[in-house]
């Protein structure tokens, strides 16, 4: 191993973006490790990075579509032709006053991502590329405490004291997305005497290690936490010091009055958990030195904003903000702005959900990006004309995926596609790129520069990390950031006077007295050295009153009625109960990222020994017996939207009898490896979110990812 070296960089096998070391030998990535200067761990997806890097399906040249959308027929073109085509269309769009009808769909790695800058400068919008991201969590925290703890910001489990309580409310923390070190940190905390409680209709690997598994009804989290909060207040066990000093004046009295009838007994009927269990955990939480709560699927399976609200009320009443073990409130690292800064269009006037027939439905919409799940409907509404997708696969990840595929092939009266241009920037062909007009070969995370700061709080406190090329890109691959900078130079040159991405990052880093080179020499990581606790004590919270807002008075009355959390579960569970007796839980595991080819088309992650080869219909053993279903039997699952799939049943003692589970992200139709894995896509059963607005969260932008189903042979 004479020419072998370990290079620090940042993983992107999933959106957690953990710090890693990559071993490069003779110009090839051979091995991955967690970076010991960060938390030192990398999960099975990260370990599988070399198989993504050297996948024989990598796109190497720009392509243009030569068949119909969806046929997947392409021919090679030059970068000049590709960029000229995109530039021409964008100029035309802007000239006709419709720049806002451009949306770029990508995971915003960092708030200074040059892609974002381009969109602001041009006048288009961004969505997160995650149809079921945790926008409602972000909105709930913004409204309550004025901070943005997104899904990368769980409690700092490594600060959880002895006697503390860790509650995973529909959160498969062992499956990734925060930081690969989270499972270790939770188990360490448990070993030093903290308690782990898992609320989940499915017995997850986390539940297998928990002190207590509470098989709650899907969407019952709001009711469960309201019941706990009511009990804590009624028993006078709430944190007086925090409430008196840090809750907005008058809010607690209003809460006390409103919550009086949300007793554990009343809430038990909604969440399906015994009142005694709710009360016991409530008292334990009130007495514990710290309570940390994390949630993700809990958000997706219910009324997300209401749950986020109830969660925050619980944290305030027990005083668990910004304390060791509790809910952290991160600050952003101060970087230098790259001048001049483009303002960007007004999301509240011009976002694709605001310009169509449903604009009034979104009156109270409060998320900072367009709702990804409205993409298909926006095409139908003529509110979206150019879509650039990068590192995402909406043709498979969109709820009601066939609705998305139909929308991008819809034509106007003149026989032209309603969506005038679809560009896909990807490592490998995906279900989405099959529909694209232009397909651009992206650089992998082992080949590109990226300055990352924002969500990586668990890793670095309020720090930053450098993703740097460790090997050369094959063929003519260019990173999407390079593409957007080039488009910026062509379409908004006044905002793109810097030479390239490196100069852009250097300018920003100057705010910290750093440069890319310096950061590289430092091992690619910078942090202020502490994450800080009780920061609100100096200067208050980020809300207008500088205190915690429990009551959201602007959402009182019609149409939202959400000034207090609504305890009920999702409306789609209340309909079609008899014909569709089971709730379908779309769930995830550590072997899977969204519906991207980097996990789907990766041999390790689709192997039965090292990953997951196919998905099954998880069904409670007793339920299956009643239905005469044996393990491995092929069953037909049907949903109210008309979707039906045939899938093998897997009997389990680890799922509620009134639910069935299906692992998300299967049903691939493209890719050397992905198509060898069996399984079906859950999104064929879940309704098209944009077409079922009555069931969606139009305030915080959360789409529901579940449905009722029936099981037949």
């Amino acid at each position, binding site marked *: 191993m004479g020419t072998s070296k370990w290079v620090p960089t940042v993983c992107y096998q999933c959106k957690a973006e953990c710090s890693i070391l990559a071993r490069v030998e003779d110009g090839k990535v051979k091995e991955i490790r967690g970076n010991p200067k960060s938390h030192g761990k990398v999960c099975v997806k990260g370990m599988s990075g070399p198989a993504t890097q*050297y996948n024989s399906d990598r796109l190497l040249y720009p392509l243009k579509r030569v068949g119909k959308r969806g046929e997947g027929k392409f021919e090679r073109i030059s970068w000049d032709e590709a960029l000229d085509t995109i530039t021409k269309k964008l100029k035309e769009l802007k000239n006709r006053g419709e720049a806002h009808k451009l949306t770029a769909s990508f995971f915003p790695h960092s708030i200074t991502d040059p892609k974002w800058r381009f969109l602001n400068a041009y006048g288009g919008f961004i969505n997160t590329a995650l149809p079921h991201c945790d926008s409602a969590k972000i909105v709930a925290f913004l409204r309550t405490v004025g901070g943005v703890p997104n899904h990368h910001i769980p409690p700092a489990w490594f600060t959880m004291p002895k006697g503390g309580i860790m509650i995973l409310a529909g959160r498969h923390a062992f499956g990734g997305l925060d930081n690969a070190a989270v499972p270790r940190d939770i188990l360490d905390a448990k070993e030093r005497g903290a308690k782990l409680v898992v609320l989940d209709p499915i017995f997850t690997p986390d539940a297998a290690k928990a002190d207590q598994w509470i098989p709650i009804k899907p969407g019952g989290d709001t009711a469960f936490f309201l019941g706990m909060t009511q009990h804590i207040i009624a028993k006078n066990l709430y944190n007086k010091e925090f409430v008196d000093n840090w809750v907005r004046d008058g809010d607690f009295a209003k809460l006390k009055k409103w919550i009086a009838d949300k007793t554990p007994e009343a809430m038990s009927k909604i969440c399906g958990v015994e009142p005694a269990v709710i009360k016991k955990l409530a008292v334990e939480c009130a007495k514990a030195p710290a309570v940390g709560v994390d949630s993700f699927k809990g958000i997706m399976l219910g009324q997300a904003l209401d749950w986020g609200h109830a969660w925050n009320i619980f944290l305030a009443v027990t005083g668990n903000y910004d304390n060791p073990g509790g809910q952290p409130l991160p600050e952003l690292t101060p970087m230098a702005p790259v001048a001049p800064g483009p303002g960007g269009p007004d999301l509240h006037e011009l976002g694709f959900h605001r310009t169509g027939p449903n604009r009034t439905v979104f009156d109270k919409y409060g998320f900072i990006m367009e709702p990804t799940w409205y993409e298909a409907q926006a095409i139908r509404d003529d509110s979206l004309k150019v879509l650039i997708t990068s590192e995402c696969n909406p043709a498979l990840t969109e709820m009601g995926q066939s609705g998305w595929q139909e929308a991008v092939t819809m034509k106007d009266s003149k026989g032209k596609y309603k969506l005038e241009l679809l560009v896909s920037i990807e490592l490998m062909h995906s279900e989405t790129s099959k529909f694209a007009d232009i397909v651009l070969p992206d650089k992998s995370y082992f080949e590109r520069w990226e300055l990352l700061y924002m969500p990586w709080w668990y890793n670095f406190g309020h720090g930053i990390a450098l993703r740097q090329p460790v090997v050369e890109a094959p063929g003519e691959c260019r990173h999407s950031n390079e593409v957007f900078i080039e488009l910026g130079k062509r379409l908004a040159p006044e905002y793109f006077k810097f030479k390239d991405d490196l100069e852009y990052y250097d300018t920003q880093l100057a705010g910290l007295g750093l440069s890319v080179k310096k950061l590289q020499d430092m091992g690619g990581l910078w942090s202020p050295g502490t994450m800080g606790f009780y920061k609100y004590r100096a200067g208050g919270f980020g809300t207008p009153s500088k205190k915690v807002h429990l009551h959201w008075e602007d959402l009182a009355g019609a149409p939202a009625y959400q000034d207090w959390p609504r305890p009920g579960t999702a409306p789609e569970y209340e309909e079609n109960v008899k014909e569709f007796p089971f709730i379908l839980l779309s769930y995830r595991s550590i072997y899977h990222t969204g519906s991207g080819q980097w996990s789907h088309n990766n041999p390790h992650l689709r192997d039965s020994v090292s990953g997951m080869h196919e998905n099954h219909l998880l069904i409670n053993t007793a339920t299956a017996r009643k239905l005469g279903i044996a393990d491995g039997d092929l069953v037909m699952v049907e949903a109210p939207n008309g979707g039906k799939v045939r899938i093998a049943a897997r009997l389990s003692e680890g799922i509620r009898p009134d639910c069935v589970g299906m692992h998300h992200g299967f049903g691939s139709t493209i890719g050397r490896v992905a198509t*060898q894995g069996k399984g079906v896509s859950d999104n064929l059963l879940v309704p098209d979110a944009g077409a079922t607005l009555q069931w969606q969260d139009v305030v915080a932008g959360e789409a529901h990812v579940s449905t009722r189903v029936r099981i037949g042979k």
Partner: protein
Amino acid sequence: MKQLGLAIDLKRCIGCKTCIVACRNFHELVNPSEAVPNQMPYYLHVESRWHGAYPSPALESWVVPCQHCPDPLCVPACPEGAIKKDPQTGIVRIDAELCNGCNAVPGQCGSEKTKSAPCAARCPAHMNVESYVRLAGNGRFKEALRVMKEDNPFPAICGRVCDHPCETECKRKDIDEAVAINFVKRHIADQDLKAETRYVPPIKAQRKEKVAVIGSGPAGLTAAYYLAREGYPVTVFEKASKPGGMLTLGIPAYRLPRDVIEAEIQVIRDMGVTIKTGVEVGKGTTVERLRKNGYKAFFFGIGTQKCKTLDVPGENLTGIYPALDYLRKVNLGEKAPLGKKVAVIGGGNAAIDGARCARRLGSPGTFILYRRSLKEMPARPEELEELEQEGIPIQTLTQPVRFIGEKGKVKAIDCVKMVLKGKDASGRRRPEPVPGSEFTIQVDGVIMALGQETDWACLTPDCACKLGDLGAMAVNPVTLQSDDADIFAGGDAVRGSSSVIEAIADGKQAAMSIDRYLKGEDLYAGRKTEWVPVENVQKEKYSPARRAVMPRLDPEKRLTGFAEVQLGLGEEQAQTEGQRCLGCSSACVQACPYGVIQFDGVKAKSHKCDLCVERVQFGEIPVCAATCLTDAIQFGELDLLRQKIAARGGEIVEALSRESILYVK
């Protein structure tokens, strides 16, 4: 010797499989551009187990690397001696220079070599045939005996009386004739006949739960052998005066000399098993009484002793013997006078045995009456051959309808000729009487060999277990557990009359079940029930060679006594015959009970976990331990690991920690 190993913490392992991929990367086990899911090698895999039921289930997961066994089965199993346990570190390594992939051709064997050899797949006891035959081919007879006795406590007995279905499957037949597996086996196993070359398996642990085995036939003694090896105190109860069941009482000495039986039973005695003869459970003592005396589990291997009858007039005349009664008397040296002309009725092995015994004991006019034709006879062809050599005729398509006596003693049989029509339930052609074809044969004695059934007098009302159709005990087909959780059964008592090797297979499976039952473990988990045989076998390295011929005693000399007829292959002959084996699968892959050995079809070599010895030499820890997501894997010297576990209040899960990898709770 220092033993390096791993401690895997079940409280921490979340079954995420990160280590598996890290290990593949470090050892460069896959080419990421070409790798195909479910066809990639792996040195580690994850196993898991559910307990309990909703809403309080529990799930445990753990990693399984090579266990670096203290007494590894792969080491003796390798015909080339390519696998060694390092005396310094205790690491078991495969020498890539010496491994020849069991004669595979590089780049052409694909994944076929990881399946089971057809012989092993077919053998009811799934003996690692390929390994011992090829070891014999390389003159490594000692290792071969060790390999055989992993799967079969009675190889010397089987080497003489087994119906060897393995040979039926042998792929060598595609070139010329099947390998004479059974002859080779016998040659290897005859080392067991002498105390100085005998292999007595080591006892793994000391356990206190007493186990009772009822019946000392091959099923019962096999169960006793495996249970004793696990460390259980085992008592075998035998109602006859000698142990061995059908081996001793049913099979004549010219086929299976008594000293061979005695030698292999002695090994079981040497392992600490107590055999009590002359004790009939169900009379005198009962299962309930044995339970009260502290027996925690029972194995019923009581065979089939009651002979079936024809249900025709005159069956009770003197001079008519049920075959088993006759053979028992002969085998115990008792008198059973038959006269000069003896009719043996039946077509199975017991009929042949009866006829050949009668011929040896002063009945030159012995002949066989069989109602079907020669083709349908269930007896083994080689026995029919020996029968012919000994001048015993078979009268086929003949069915007795009446026995005629004089002064209470048989003197003639009224018979009818038969014709074969259609098919019966067994798939054989059905015999029907030809009207008007009756005739009479004069005889001095008769042996009735029409098959047997079980005498269940041992089952007293305190047992809940049920008998199925045909009087066999109803047991779970995988675990052999009956409706009484502590009662297991196997062999003829469950199957009806079958073979010695099937009885051995049952005894082995039942012992595994009893061990798990007594440890409170899942009886099913991880049990291999499917054996996928290799289909495409490489024949490039082989040219035609004649199958070994078994030297036999001169027919003239045979009839004067009970000397063994088959004389056994010589060493050179056994070695030459062993070299005829095509090595369909891979001997070490077959031998490993943990399924951790990989076969590289491109290089045509076996490979596996070496605890990252090249890292360890530089003071680093194995990759799995270095990359474990939850710090669940610790590496070190086994003794130190044990101390660390104890210091942290951990508990070693004995049921999993059988070798050099410790599983901790």
